[in-house]
């Protein structure tokens, strides 16, 4: 079920009313409703893959229970690895089987050995990368005794499959989300209103920004061989905003929806395109994933404690794995590597934690130095996104070589001028609002907060109007494929 669909517009009020009016007296029933609603939400796409979620839930629940009573360290390790192998096994099979097979075949063919290609027609279950990491965080935290294993199977199931963030995050930690299922939820007016506002902003980002940019980005990337350099630059910029609007829009809707049910999810994006360096960008982009990799991969590998070599190795490992997490394609790995290369100079000069606060905090506009820093970071990011969006490495390289050709100095050649002007105006307005709200959880969190209800309603009506009037053609959320 897509958040920007009529199905969800019907589904959400039904679940909301049942949750607060019918089952509000019983916490277990409320949790059970969340599990059922989440399975319906997921099964709407393909009910067959519910079995994977259920299996993963049962395995991790049982592993958690065993870890609770098991004191023998080697047996505890076996339990941990059972969970890791089951979860990563599913992920590896559904997401990476064909990739590894094809690359093995290519590698062996280099030595003159021919191997039959037994690639399978595998459907990638939506959200598998997200819920796998979420359940893994539970088992690892229980293993490390950071978290008391749960005795409540329904609460644990609800934690694994919580529908607002099941298919595209934010990837929650068990230490943060699971305890919320144990406590009675009390409806809070402000929290619910805030949730609705965040949903509205998420829909705006997805339908107005991402879907409109997608139209041009797809057109340009799909016919890149016929485009000149300046058009390809525009295509990369459109994709840069598409992926931000798409993914952060989804996160906003997920967080807002959770708030309607009394839950708090972690912030997943914090105005990343206003970052002054790549380190800051990665503290602001897909925060739930980057902190997951930091805590469960980077730190266990030794983090920044070792020597220079260790720092470089660990940085490359997390960026390459992060790239590979996004998809079984060399383009994602190169995208990860590029970000590692961007990041390394900051790390090696101990400047990676230089920009921790919000840019131009308390000021209307950034300084020239800040502006240049933001522009540089943005340019580097746009360049890296070319690999992320390209169909394969060859496509990315031909795309970049055309950008670097003299054709970059010619006029762009895309579509109908009116539509391009429309999206440029919308992007400008969007950036102004994002800039104004860059210090908030989401850009319009405080928009009109000091005004009367009538003014606030008027602002919301304008956003709704823009969504209806300027919304792009419905596209699936990009991160569903990861």
């Amino acid at each position, binding site marked *: 079920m897509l958040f920007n669909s009529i199905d969800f517009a019907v589904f959400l009020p039904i679940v909301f009313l049942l949750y607060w009016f019918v089952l509000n007296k019983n916490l277990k029933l409320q949790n059970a409703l969340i599990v059922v609603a989440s399975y319906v939400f997921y099964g709407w796409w393909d009910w067959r893959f519910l079995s994977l979620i259920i299996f993963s839930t049962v395995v991790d629940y049982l592993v958690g229970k065993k870890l609770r009573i098991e004191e023998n360290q080697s047996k505890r390790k076996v339990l941990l690895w059972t969970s890791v192998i089951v979860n990563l096994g599913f992920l590896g099979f559904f997401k990476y089987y064909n990739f590894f097979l094809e690359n093995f075949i290519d590698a062996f063919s280099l030595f003159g050995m021919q191997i039959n290609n037994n690639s399978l027609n595998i459907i990638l279950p939506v959200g598998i990368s997200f819920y796998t990491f979420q359940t893994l965080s539970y088992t690892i935290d229980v293993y490390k005794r950071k978290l008391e294993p749960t005795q409540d199977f329904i609460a644990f199931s609800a934690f694994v499959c919580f529908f607002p963030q099941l298919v595209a995050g934010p990837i929650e930690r068990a230490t943060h989300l699971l305890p919320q299922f144990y406590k009675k939820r009390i409806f809070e*007016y402000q929290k*619910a*209103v805030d949730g609705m506002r965040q949903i509205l902003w998420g829909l705006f980002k997805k339908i107005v920004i991402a879907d409109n940019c997608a139209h041009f980005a797809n057109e340009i990337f799909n016919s890149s061989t016929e485009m000149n350099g300046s058009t390809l630059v525009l295509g990369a910029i459109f994709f840069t905003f598409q992926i931000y609007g798409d993914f952060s829009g989804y996160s906003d809707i997920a967080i807002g929806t959770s708030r309607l049910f009394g839950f708090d999810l972690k912030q997943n994006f914090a105005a990343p395109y206003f970052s002054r360096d790549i380190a800051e960008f990665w503290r602001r982009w897909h925060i739930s994933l980057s902190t997951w990799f930091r805590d469960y991969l980077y730190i266990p590998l030794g983090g920044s404690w070792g020597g220079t070599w260790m720092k470089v190795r660990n940085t490359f490992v997390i960026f390459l794995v992060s790239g590979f997490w996004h998809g079984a394609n060399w383009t994602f790995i190169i995208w990860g590597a590029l970000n590692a290369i961007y990041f390394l100079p900051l790390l090696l000069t101990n400047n990676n934690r230089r920009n921790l606060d919000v840019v131009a905090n308390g000021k209307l506009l950034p300084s020239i130095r800040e502006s240049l820093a933001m522009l540089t970071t943005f340019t580097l990011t746009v360049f890296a996104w070319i690999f992320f969006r390209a169909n394969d490495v060859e496509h990315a390289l031909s795309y970049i070589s055309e950008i670097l050709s003299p054709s970059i100095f010619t006029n762009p050649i895309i579509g109908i001028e009116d539509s391009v002007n429309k999206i440029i105006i919308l992007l400008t307005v969007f950036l102004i609002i994002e800039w104004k709200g860059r210090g908030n959880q989401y850009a319009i969190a405080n928009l009109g907060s000091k005004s009367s209800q009538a003014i606030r309603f008027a602002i919301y*009506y304008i956003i*709704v109007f823009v969504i*209806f009037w300027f919304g792009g053609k419905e596209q699936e959320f990009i991160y569903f494929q990861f």
Partner: protein
Amino acid sequence: MRKFLVNILIFIVFGYFIGEFSIRVLKLGINIPEMYQDTNGLIKNFPNQTGYYLNGNKWSVNKFGEFGYEPKSLDSLITVIGDSFIENIMNPNECDQAYLLSMRTNSYNFYPSARSGANLIEFMEMTKSLTHLNPVKQILYVHDSDFSNSIREIKHENKTFQWSIRSNNISYPQFLENKIKKVLYNFQFMYYIYRNYIISNENSSKIKIDDNKLNIDYNKIQKLLDFINKTYITDNIIIVFSPNSDKGLIEMVMKNNFQTIILKTDDIKTWEFPNDSHWTCFGHEEVAKQVSHGLKLKLTESNYKNSPY
């Protein structure tokens, strides 16, 4: 909780009224014409009505109860018969097929007659109902699906005329003068959202899929053509095939002694709306060019045939 629900309700209700008001003031809604079913089973519009289609496009029903162009005289008449493509409420009247043909063929008057969703057998019923006007020619604009949709044994339909191979009878369309439907059409904002955001994408993809996957049962269609030849006056009928029509179907129709005009274009998309396979004004003009050219040839042929020398 109560405060939250009340505020949500106020927001939705007030927003709905703003939407309804805007749709009506900006004329963005769709007005549905008043209709009735005549004694021959044909569903017709009450004459002299006007209304709006999407994007403020005004439609009108002429004094004969037909959409769009009104012929200046009923002398030397040529009828222009079809479905929603000829009804053409998505375009201004200046792009009406009958109007465009009358601009190109001055010596004749063109009489439009169309109903959305009509099929070949309904077109034939329309030709029958217009014979009292003594038309010189009756032009039928068809798509491949109009043949199959006419046969009850291929696709059972209640909303159009259909011929049954088994019973050799024609069934009339069911006309539901649904009062609830009328009330619902008054919620123009809701209908606008439904039309623009729910069914528009579905329709555009469905039309293309239907056309692509159309399985043509030539045997049954031959039986349909036999029935048409026996039942209706077909001498003055010209069948206009839309571009990319099935070649086998065109050959079959020609073998059955129908006059035909086959529309051609290198890129059908240039004739269509972005999310709607109906023809744009440009598409209609291209069609009118080809049809008027074909029509002139047919009229000349007829003159020679009717010549006493």
